[in-house]
C-alpha cells in the first residue's frame, strides 16, 4: 500500500465519477440514470477513504462519512426506484425524455 501514491486513487475515483456522470446524463432509461448516480457516489466514497488513509489516518471522520454516504445512497436508491415505478405505472414508460412535465 505505501508504494501506491495517493493521486492514483484520486485519478481512478475521478474516472469512475466521470463514467457515472456520463451514464446519468446520457442514458434514456431511468434505471440506467439511477445506476449512474450510484457509481458517482461510489467514486466519491473512494476519495473519502483514500483521503482518510493518506492524510488523517488517526481520525475516524473519513470512515464515518463513507458509512453515512452509503446509507444515503441506499435510501436514495430505494426512493428513486419507487419514483421510477410510480412514473412507470402512471405513464407507462421509463424513457426519461417522455417525462417532461417541467416544460413551460
Amino acid at each position: 500500500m505505501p508504494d501506491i501514491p495517493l493521486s492514483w486513487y484520486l485519478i481512478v475515483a475521478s474516472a469512475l465519477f466521470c463514467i457515472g456522470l456520463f451514464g446519468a446524463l446520457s442514458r434514456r432509461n431511468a434505471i440506467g440514470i439511477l445506476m449512474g448516480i450510484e457509481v458517482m457516489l461510489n467514486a466519491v466514497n473512494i476519495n473519502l477513504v483514500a483521503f482518510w488513509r493518506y492524510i488523517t489516518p488517526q481520525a475516524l471522520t473519513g470512515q464515518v462519512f463513507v458509512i453515512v454516504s452509503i446509507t444515503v445512497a441506499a435510501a436514495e436508491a430505494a426512493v428513486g426506484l419507487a419514483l421510477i415505478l410510480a412514473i412507470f405505472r402512471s405513464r407507462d414508460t421509463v424513457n426519461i425524455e417522455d417525462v417532461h412535465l417541467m416544460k413551460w
Partner: protein
Amino acid sequence: MSITQVAFILISAITLGSALAMVTSRTVFVAALWMVAAFVGVAALYILLEAGFLAAIQLLIYAGGIAVLILFAIMLTPRVMQPMEGLSRFNDQWMFVAAVSAFLFAGLWALAIRTDWPVNLQRVTGDNIFLLGRGFMTQYLLPFEVTSILLLVALVGAIVIARD
C-alpha cells in the same frame, strides 16, 4: 513496480471497465450486472486502503442490497428490461455529455497530480472496527441517529410512493 501496484492497476482496470460496460450496455439488466462488478471492484480498492469494514459494507449494501433492489425492480416490470424499440440507449445529447465528462476527467486528473497532498503515512493503530463502533456511540452519535432516521423516512417514503 511492486506487487501492490500491479494489484491496484488490475483492480482499477476491472472497476473502470465494468463501469464503462455498464453505461454502454444496451439492456438495463446487463448494465445492472456490470454495476455489481464495478461495486466489487470498489470493495477491493477499500481493502487495498486497509478499510476492511468498509469493504464488507460495500459488498453487503451495494453489491448485495442495492444491486438486488435494482435487479428486482427491473425484472418485476418486464417492459423495463427490454431495450426501447427504435430508440438509441442514449439520448440526443450524449456526445456533448461525453465531451463534458472527458474534460472534467482531464481537469480532475490535473488537479490530483498538481496538488501537493499533505500525506501522513502513519499506520492505523488499534482495532479499526472497534474504534469505529465506539465512535458511532460517542462522538458521532448524532450523525448516526440522523442517518437512522433518514433510512426510516426513506423506507416509509419508498413504500408510500411505490404503492398503488
